[in-house]
C-alpha cells in the first residue's frame, strides 16, 4: 500500500495538468463549437513564452508574466484564424486549426530552435514528508495552481454574469445577438482564457521536463481526456484529467510489467470503455427534448 501512494501522487500531479489543458479545450468547444486541434501547440507556445520570460525574470514571475501574453495570443488566434471562418462548415474550421497547429510548430522551431530547453530558475521548494512518503514539490505546485484555477473557473462559469453570457452564447448565438450581447468579444475572451490555461499547464510541465517538441505529445492527451469528461462538460474535463492521470500512474505500476507499452494506449482504451456505458462522457449533458 505504501508503495502505491507515490504513484497516486504522481498521477494526480500529471492529472492536474491534463485537467487544465482539457478545461481550456472544452471551454472553447462548448462556447464556439470549434475543435481546436492546435491545443497542444498552445501549450508549446505557452511554455516557450515562460522560458523566454525566465531568461530575465525569476521563474514564478516569468510564469505570471506569460499569462497575459498567452491571453493576447488566444485573442489573436481567434481574430486571425477562427472568426473569419465562423459560419463556414465545420470541416473548414477544423482544417484551419490543424493548419494553425502546423504553422505554430514551425514558427516555434524557427524562433527558439529545435533543441530541448530548460527553464532558468526554480520554483520555491514545497515538497514535504507525508508519513513515510515524500510529496514532491512538483506535485504540490501542480495541484496548488491547477485546482483553484480550474475550480475557480468552473465557479465563474456557473455563477458569474460573464459565465452566464458564455453559456447563453454557446447554446444559441443568434438569440444572444438579438439581445445585443457582444458575442464576438466574449467568445474572443474564451479563446484567451483557453490559451492562458494551456500556458500554465505548459509552464508547469516545462519545469519538470524542459521545453521542446515533446510537449506536443502531452497535448495530444487532451482529446481522450475531453471525450472522457464529456466534450461539452467543463467540469468533466477537470475530473477526467485527474482520473486519467491516476489511471496512467496505476497502469505504469501494475500493468506495465505484464503488458509493456500499455500505458501509452490506456487513455484511448478508457475512453472506449466509458463511452460504451455513458455515450455523453462522464459528465456530458443530455439534450432537452422538448422544443
Amino acid at each position, binding site marked *: 500500500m505504501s508503495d502505491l501512494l507515490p504513484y497516486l501522487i504522481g498521477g494526480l500531479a500529471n492529472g492536474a495538468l491534463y485537467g487544465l489543458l482539457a478545461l481550456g479545450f472544452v471551454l472553447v468547444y462548448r462556447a464556439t463549437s470549434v475543435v481546436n486541434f492546435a491545443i497542444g501547440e498552445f501549450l508549446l507556445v505557452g511554455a516557450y513564452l515562460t522560458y523566454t520570460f525566465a531568461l530575465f525574470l525569476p521563474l514564478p514571475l516569468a510564469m505570471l508574466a506569460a499569462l497575459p501574453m498567452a491571453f493576447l495570443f488566444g485573442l489573436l488566434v481567434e481574430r486571425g484564424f477562427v472568426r473569419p471562418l465562423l*459560419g463556414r462548415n465545420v470541416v473548414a474550421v477544423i482544417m484551419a486549426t490543424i493548419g494553425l497547429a502546423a504553422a505554430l510548430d514551425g514558427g516555434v522551431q524557427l524562433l527558439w530552435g529545435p533543441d530541448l530547453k530548460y527553464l532558468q530558475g526554480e520554483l520555491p521548494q514545497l515538497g514535504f514528508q507525508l508519513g513515510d512518503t515524500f510529496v514532491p514539490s512538483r506535485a504540490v505546485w501542480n495541484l496548488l495552481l491547477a485546482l483553484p484555477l480550474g475550480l475557480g473557473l468552473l465557479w465563474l462559469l456557473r455563477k458569474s*454574469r460573464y459565465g*452566464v*453570457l458564455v*453559456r*447563453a452564447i454557446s*447554446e*444559441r*448565438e*443568434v*438569440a*444572444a*445577438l*438579438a*439581445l*445585443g*450581447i*457582444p458575442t464576438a468579444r466574449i467568445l474572443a475572451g474564451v479563446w484567451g482564457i483557453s490559451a492562458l490555461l494551456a500556458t500554465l499547464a505548459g509552464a508547469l510541465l516545462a519545469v519538470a521536463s524542459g521545453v521542446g517538441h515533446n510537449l506536443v505529445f502531452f497535448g495530444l492527451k487532451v482529446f481522450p481526456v475531453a471525450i472522457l469528461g464529456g466534450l461539452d462538460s467543463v467540469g468533466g474535463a477537470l475530473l477526467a484529467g485527474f482520473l486519467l492521470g491516476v489511471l496512467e500512474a496505476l497502469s505504469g505500476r501494475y500493468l506495465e510489467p505484464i503488458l509493456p507499452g500499455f500505458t501509452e494506449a490506456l487513455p484511448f482504451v478508457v475512453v472506449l470503455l466509458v463511452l460504451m456505458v455513458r455515450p455523453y462522457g462522464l459528465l456530458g*449533458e443530455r439534450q*432537452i427534448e*422538448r*422544443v
Partner: protein
Amino acid sequence: MILSVENLKVVYRGVILALDGVSLEVREGEAVALLGPNGAGKSSLVRAVAGLLPKFEGRVLDGHVRLFGQEATHLDPVRITGLGLTAVLEGRPLFRYLTPVENLVAAGHRLSSRELKEGMEEVFARFPRLYERRHEQAGYLSGGEQQMLLLGMALLTRPKVLVVDEPSLGLAPKLVEEVMRTLDALRKEKGLSLLLVEQNARAALAIVDRVYVLERGRVVFEGDAQAAQEDQDVMEFYLGKEEVGFRQAKRYRRRKRWV
C-alpha cells in the same frame, strides 16, 4: 419616426428574394401589426430591422431601415439594441439549458447589478409562475411560461421599440389572449412602441393601432386596425374568415390551422 423601413429588398444566399420592396413605419408609442401567411417575409423583416440577416445567410439588397431617424440598415445587432430596438425572434429564442434567472441575467447584460436585481424582481412580480420555477431549466417551462420569460427578457434590454415575431405560435387560445393582454399592458405601462408580427390576425388586431399585411414579400394592405377589422374584404381575403370563397384564402386558412 421611431422605426421606418423604406423599399426594403432582402435576399437569402443571393437568390431567394424574401422581401420585394417593403415600406412601413412605427411611430412613437404606436402599436403596429404585421400580418401575413407562411413565407410572406414577416420574419425576414424582423431579422432585417434587428441586424440579424447575416446570421441567416441573408442581406439587404436595397432600401433602408431607419431607427430614430438614424440610418440603421447595416448596423450590427449590438448597436441596434443599443439604440433601443429589441427583437424577440420567432420560435421562442430563449436559452433552454439556462434557468429563468440566468436567462434574465443574460438579457440584462447592459444593466448594473442593482438595476438587474430590480429589473428581475419586477419581472418575477409580474409573472409569479416564473418565480416559482426560477431555478429550473427554461427548456422545461410550458410554452406560455416561456413566452412570458421572453417578454421579461426583452424588458431587461430596456427597449424603446419592441419587435415580437409570432408570440402566439403553438399556444392554446386562452394563452394567446393572455400573451396579447400582457404585451398590451407592458407597452402602455412602459410607453413602448410595438411591431407585432402575427399569423393570428384576430388576436393581434385586438391590441394594435395600425396594420400591414404582407404577402410574398410585398405589402398588400395597410391601414387602421379598426378599419381592417370592419373591412370584410380584408378580413376574408387576407386574414381568413369563416365564409371564404376564394381558393387562395381558403388555402391560407387551412395552413393556419396546422400551426
